[in-house]
């Protein structure tokens, strides 16, 4: 029982970076733009957020700069694909490679100047980002640990996902965004400013990914800088968008399920389930494949894939 609670807590921790990446990518894809640069945007957010935290000792400032740098890297993508109409897949992949290289370059540059030979965030920040503790509530048995013991990132991530879900389904701007993703020509004719909507949401998505990145460099890596610190999580987030069926509310469930599947191999008693480790490594992706098969078999279920995903919008060819 005790181990079960610890497993669930670990699953939430492992799912949080995926939640940011997935929510950000859902907003991006809803504009009809497939941004494969999630890993790169997260890397840039991880790097800039970490460095700002390292030099300023300020957690909130680090968070803001992580979001800003993620937004800026998404702006590059938006400029290339929306305005210049470059191929979305190629631009996204380039952004990933660029982002990882940029983050490692800055990391190496600062690391070489550090007298200790390591970059470790000051205790003030590590204390702020570790699990919250609310007097009375966090001490409750089971509930306290399961609901009120996480790092602030977890609550920020869930909050962003819920707000995004509301934004997409219940606001005029969100419905306009969905229209752009389905059929930009029709949306344009209806008076929606397609280019502006695309820019805003791609940048917003990038900002959310950037926060996910700083979670990697600050929490997963314990506040010590290492190269390649996002470690492929951005790619899993891209897969999770399909799992979540382009719904931010499903992204919460999806990312925590994926998180659970990723830590399962460390918590499952091997004496009872003697499967090879590789089996557990496969599970999250097996799950995605299953969800794809099931959702394509159930014709009645609404598939939220934006109809014009991956297609650039040429206004002149309308």
């Amino acid at each position, binding site marked *: 029982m005790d181990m079960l609670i610890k497993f669930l807590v670990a699953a939430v921790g492992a799912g949080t970076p995926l939640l940011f990446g997935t929510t950000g990518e859902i907003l991006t894809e809803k504009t009809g733009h497939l941004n494969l640069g999630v890993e790169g945007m997260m890397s840039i957010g991880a790097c800039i957020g970490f460095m700002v935290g390292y030099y300023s000792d300020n957690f909130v400032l680090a968070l803001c700069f992580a979001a800003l740098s993620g937004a800026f890297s998404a702006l590059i993508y938006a400029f*290339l694909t929306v305005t210049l109409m*470059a191929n979305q897949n190629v631009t996204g992949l380039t952004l990933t490679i660029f982002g990882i*290289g940029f983050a*490692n370059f800055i990391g190496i540059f600062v690391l070489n100047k550090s007298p200790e030979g390591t970059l470790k965030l000051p205790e003030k920040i590590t204390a702020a980002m570790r699990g919250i503790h609310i007097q009375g509530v966090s001490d409750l048995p089971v509930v306290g640990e399961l609901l009120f013991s996480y790092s602030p990132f977890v609550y920020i991530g869930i909050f962003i996902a819920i707000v995004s879900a509301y934004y997409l389904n219940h606001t005029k701007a969100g419905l306009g965004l969905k229209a752009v993703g389905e059929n930009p020509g029709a949306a344009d004719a209806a008076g929606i400013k397609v280019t502006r909507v695309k820019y805003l949401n791609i940048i917003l998505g990038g900002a959310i990914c950037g926060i996910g990145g700083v979670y990697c460099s600050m929490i*997963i*890596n314990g506040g010590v*800088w*290492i190269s390649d610190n996002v*470690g492929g999580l951005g790619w899993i987030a891209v897969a999770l968008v399909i799992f979540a069926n382009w719904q931010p509310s499903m992204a919460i469930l999806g990312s925590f399920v994926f998180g659970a599947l990723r*830590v399962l191999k460390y918590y499952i008693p091997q004496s009872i389930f003697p499967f090879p480790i590789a089996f557990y490594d496969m599970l999250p992706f097996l799950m995605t494949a299953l969800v794809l098969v099931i959702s394509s078999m159930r014709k009645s279920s609404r598939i939220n894939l934006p109809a014009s995903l991956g297609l650039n919008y040429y206004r002149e060819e309308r």
Partner: protein
Amino acid sequence: MKKFLSLLAVLAMVVSLCACGNNQAPAADTVQSTDDSGAETGAQTAAGVMPAIAKEDIKVGVIHITDPAEGSGYTYTHDLGIQGMQKNIGLEDSQIVRKNNVNDSDATAIENAIRECIEEGCNVIFATSWGFMDTCEALADEFPEVIFSHGTGYKSNGTNFNNYFGRIYQARYLAGIAAGLKTESNKLGYVAAMGQDNSEVTGGINAFAMGAYSVNPDCEVYVKVTNSWFDPEGETQAAQALVDLGCDVIAQHCDTPNPQTVAEQNGVWGVGYNSDMSKDAPGAVLTSVMWDWSVYYTFAVQSIIDGTWSGENYFGGMNEGLVTIAPLSDLCADGTQEAVEAARNQITKEGFNVFDGVIETNDGSTVGADGSTLSDGEITGSMNWYFKNVVVK
């Protein structure tokens, strides 16, 4: 026009990326002929199988699997060794060519990296990762005048291609003593990159467990396998799972210092690997199991200069100074220093080889025989059992 502009912008991103990637590679020098000077300095004076190369004509190519500036891990430690060798021998910066981030499962990338080194005039190649082995073997045939030295594998050709590795298990045995004396829960955790079928990792776990057992027969070693040589998140999660199981010393055979920072945040202790990780987690690290690759690199390059390069495999240990543990931190239990020194003496002076005599495994069988020790081949190639106090849970 727009298409052209976008193409240009994408191109600019690619170019800036290349600029980032190559920042460490020194500019190509003109290829120097090594034959003349080799003859002058008296080739084959000793038992060398290759002609000697004068110090100023040596050019070393290093093939790294990741980037030396990664922080604390494998490549960082190897590059410290290269820098140490450069200092010991007195080579110029231009005499060292580094190829970083060479994917060790991509034979084309490996071959290109090595060929680039040779084109830049390198006559000694150090390849630091397991996966570089077969490419080195093939290229050693093609370039008989270039010396290839490959780390962590087992192949060699006796002339211009050898293999180097070390008895890291000796250092792990000492670290096990420090951990066994420190633990209060009698549960030691071990984050392992690879499972039981990998002799290098498994041998390290066994030596650590035997060291701990020698001072604390009640303690157990819990193992969690990430199944990857580099997985920052997985290493964090594995360490957290070990802490959740009640382990209060977290040792590791993986690249990032993440298990140590997890230990620090949970108020338990740890044993680092590769370099001294007390800089990353000063509140947790008891000691670190360390490589000093400069010992081998200096030995190898010096023997090439002296003309005594033998082409034999190198398997150094504590006596050579290739492996060691970092100075014990103040966090260690009282008496640790004495116990560690006693064991160090046994290993370096009394011929104790850790895997001596009959060893009980955790599935009830035994390995080895009285009065003998496991051969180097068995230690590096076929150690696929766990010592009796190792628990895979």
